[in-house]
């Protein structure tokens, strides 16, 4: 938990956003994040983010499921309590395929979702700072981190120059905390469009 200063620029088009991201990076500023209402393909590359390895984690969880199912069932039927079912083999691998498969899928899916929530710091009651309420609606919000030496006027001028529709500076927490949205976020006041 640390308060930091940020310059915020809002864009209403992906086209201008991509251009702006490239220019801001060229100018040597540190992009804290870009908040978008939907996944914009290629934006992660443009921002220089590395690929996620979440799928590798999923693979490992899946493998754990396979191993658990096979070892457990073979232990039960060959060591712990071997049951004679019409003289059929105790180690009945083909009959275990369905459960092995299901457990593989179950562990991979549950493990991946939990990992996803953990690394993205998502959970019920988690509160984060939102730079613009319409970042989940129709605006692409670029947030630039401002250090001690950053010239805020120049940053804002650059953002305006890059066709940002709205430019401001904010002081905010960059992490998460336990909080309530109704107490810490303003209510929406725009008229309902019928």
């Amino acid at each position: 938990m640390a308060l930091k200063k940020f310059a915020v620029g809002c864009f209403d088009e992906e086209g201008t956003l991509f251009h702006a991201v490239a220019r801001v990076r060229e100018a040597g500023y540190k992009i804290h994040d870009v908040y978008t209402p939907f996944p914009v393909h290629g934006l992660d590359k443009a921002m220089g983010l590395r690929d996620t390895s979440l799928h590798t984690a999923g693979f490992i969880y899946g493998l754990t499921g396979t191993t658990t199912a096979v070892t457990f069932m073979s232990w039960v039927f060959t060591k712990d309590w071997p049951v004679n079912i019409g003289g059929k083999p105790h180690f009945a691998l083909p009959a275990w395929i369905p459960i092995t498969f299901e457990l593989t899928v179950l562990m991979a899916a549950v493990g991946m979702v939990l990992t996803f929530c953990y690394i993205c710091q998502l959970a019920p009651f988690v509160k984060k700072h939102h730079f613009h309420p319409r970042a989940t609606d129709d605006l692409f919000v670029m947030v630039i981190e401002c250090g001690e030496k950053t010239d805020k006027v120049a940053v804002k001028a650059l953002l305006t120059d890059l066709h940002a529709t709205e430019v401001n500076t904010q002081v905010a927490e960059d992490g998460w905390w336990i909080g309530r949205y109704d107490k810490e976020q303003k209510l929406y006041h725009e008229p309902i469009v019928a």
Partner: protein
Amino acid sequence: MSLIKYESQVREPLIDGHKTYHDVTEDICHTIEAKPTRLWYIGFYISVALLLFGVYAVYREVTYGIGQWNLGRTVGWGWDITNFVWWVGIGHAGTLISAILLLFRQRWRTGVNRAAEAMTIFAVMCAGQFPIFHMGRVWMAFFTLPYPNTRGPLWPNFNSPLMWDVFAISTYFIVSLLFWYSGLIPDLATIRDRARTKLRKHLYGIASFGWTGSTKHWQRHESLSLVLAGLSTPLVLSVHTIVSFDFATSIVPGWHTTIFPPYFVAGAIFSGFAMVQTLMLVMRKVMRLEAYITVNHIEVMNKVIVLTGSIVGCAYLTELFMAWYSMVPYEQDHFFKYRIAGPYGWSYWLMMTCNVISPQLFWFKKLRRNIAFTFVMSIVVNIGMWFERFVIIVTSVYRDYLPSAWSIYYRPSIWEIGFYLGTFGLFFTCFFLFAKYFPVIAIAEIKHVLKTSGQSYKEKMGGMEKLSARAFHDNVHHGDEEHETHVKVAHH
């Protein structure tokens, strides 16, 4: 950049009207933010009433035992397992739409996937009730779980198809729920950020897990969706395969059939899409979502229905052929004397009419795009698919090998029917709540395809498509130069 994602004019726009991103948000959120209509209340109360009747029917069964149902010595599986298989089948379309169509890059799925996934979850919830209460002593249901117990420990038989079912259905439910909810998080955040009341802000704030829309989070979210889709694709096929193993691994004539797994999976997709149609046609009208669930969407789903209906029809004929070809008198009697004829012959022919013959009308484009006709057909198909399971289950067991073990005519008791109606109550209660409090269309996914599949883009590209190759090239190139000069100017 947008030129690279060129999509031909041959395909109709998936989103009608010249929508902006904000329009999409407004269109989908307005029903959540407005007060429920009178129609909603009427539907909701009817569903709750049905649910309560179901609860009473189940209460009778639990208190007085399974004798409350008309199951007998040979018909040990009747309406309960028929309903179980029927609901599980319906629960297949959601994951099919969200997972398999995601892998196949079918963009039209974005209009219907969210509601279809919700339908899946509720249908699986309904399905699960039947085998659980069929156990009779339902308080012993946890005996199916492999937990270290004081009886040895005595483990469940992992070689049994009924045990596979426990794993398959519960895995399917959990994975579908995770898939659905992880997709919902960004959309719940949209509703949270638009909330006009404190309570709404608080509750959607909890439900949206503190989602911000960060690029890194989106990147992981995309990866998660893709892998979950990859996992769900074989899962959805495995679940109905395993359900079919409940029958196919037995030696009962009529059940002992190797064609069951693909036949059941096709039937599941068939009935699932029919249920999606029933729900979507009402939903798009009541919630004014005609721009997102277009006639094009309906037509595409009708194509899936005619395809899977024909596969199912082939399977029915294959069964008859194999019974004749096998030269096993019991098989032949079961199919030709007790199934297509005999006291339950009417149910076989009802199934044939609803599932095989009537969907063939969807070969006509006019009928595929006719909303009223589609609605009627979707109900006809679901009646047919219910009778398919009834035919498979009841007509295979009501006459055993020896005439002394033939049962009297099986018909359900009021509590068996009540249990079935109760699951309708459960399903629609959940669905009404979902339609009121959750975004019924995946907002973020619609926005994601808006630029390439929306009407504005299609119209712009329509002109582009008529250009000659040279003119097209010049056009693209000209755009590039303009862009570069613009960058240069900005540099200076």
